[in-house]
């Protein structure tokens, strides 16, 4: 009797998270980076809240995007090195769905912490509290999109010895639309405008990348075995 697909996906999700927490520095690194960059901005520019509020949306989004980019490289690297990727390819389960579970686990370990600390950092940059919901929603969609897109880059650069530079070059241009609409949504919310349109566009990008990326990733993972 074969394991059901939902059971297999749950197993991948749970075990990937267990592994991530055993290597907790991988979870801590993006959060620390995100916190450092946003706290350095007032020191380098101006400590005046009015001035900070004007740039807060952009700063938070750039910092979160780069922080999320840090963890992408490790998505499949260890699995490739220790041979568990081979076993996953040969598990007899539809690979694209397993990849989706892995992407979800990666987001939970690297994107979600950023979303959770973002309100604290936003308040320190003078973002009004009614804009925090929009900030968190936009970052949740944005980091989700980046995890899905980044998985493609991570799978494509698996065989390369110094894949991290190429990975950034591959993924960042694809993430630009998310950055534009995400930062715009936060900016509008800060100024008390309705950010719904930008958020909906972000949501559309998220759904698109989430549906297409597992297919591309599973093809890239099979190629990585050649």
């Amino acid at each position, binding site marked *: *009797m*074969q*394991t059901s697909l939902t*059971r*297999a996906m749950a*197993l*991948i999700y749970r*075990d990937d998270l*267990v*592994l991530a927490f*055993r*290597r907790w520095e991988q979870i801590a690194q993006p959060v620390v980076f995100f916190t450092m960059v946003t706290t350095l901005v007032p020191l380098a520019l101006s400590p005046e809240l009015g001035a900070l509020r004007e740039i807060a949306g952009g700063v938070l989004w750039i910092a979160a995007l780069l922080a999320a980019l840090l963890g992408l490289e490790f998505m499949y690297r*260890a699995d490739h*090195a*220790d*041979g*568990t990727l*081979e*076993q*996953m*390819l*040969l*598990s*007899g*389960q*539809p*690979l694209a769905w*397993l990849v989706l579970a892995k992407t979800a686990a990666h987001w939970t370990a690297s994107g979600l912490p950023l979303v959770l600390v973002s309100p604290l950092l936003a308040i320190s940059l003078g973002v009004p509290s009614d804009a925090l919901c929009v900030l968190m929603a936009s970052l949740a969609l944005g980091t989700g999109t980046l995890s899905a897109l980044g998985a493609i880059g991570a799978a494509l650069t698996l065989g390369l010895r110094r894949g991290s530079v190429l990975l950034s070059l591959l993924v960042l241009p694809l993430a630009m639309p998310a950055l534009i609409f995400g930062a715009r949504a936060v900016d509008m919310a800060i100024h008390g405008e309705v950010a719904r349109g930008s958020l909906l566009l972000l949501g559309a990008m998220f759904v698109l990348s989430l549906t297409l990326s597992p297919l591309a990733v599973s093809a890239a993972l099979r190629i990585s*075995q*050649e």
Partner: protein
Amino acid sequence: MLHGVSLDVAAGQVVHVAGSNGVGKTTLLRVLAGLLTAEQGSVSWQDRPITADFDSYASTLAYLGHNDGLKADFSARENLSHEVGLRRPVTSDEIDDTLTRVGLADCRDLPARVLSAGQHRRLAMARVMLTSAPLWILDEPFTNLDHVGVQLLSSVIAEHIDGDGAAVIAAHQPPAIPGHTVNCVNLA
């Protein structure tokens, strides 16, 4: 790298893939497992090309490669429940029994990173046993195993063959499988 290689594996057969270093034993095994695609020719399982329905072919095979396919941060038990659990529902009793069989009962809760290379190999073997797949593709399964380990593995393979399983084994030494003749494919 490989040209004109043809082999048949039937239920109840052991095939030993022999050849000197670098001749393509691993490549052949990876092609058989479907991890590599052959530039020419094809691999068929039960008269159907494996590419037709790869997932169902993959679920009938257990592959042991150069890499043991173990997570260093998982314990022996966790490794098995993860790897085997992806393929079929597995109970912890089954896992414990198999770990006892391969001689790892005492270190079942230790993280794989503190186990020795031979113990890794035994753990990977336990995974292959638990998969309950009819076709075993084993790449140098005897590497790093001690004398007792080699005997254990040979008898495990013999049991698998007795149960109408099939095995393709790449190794430098012809494997001695008790009670069975080994068909040899020499790539050199």
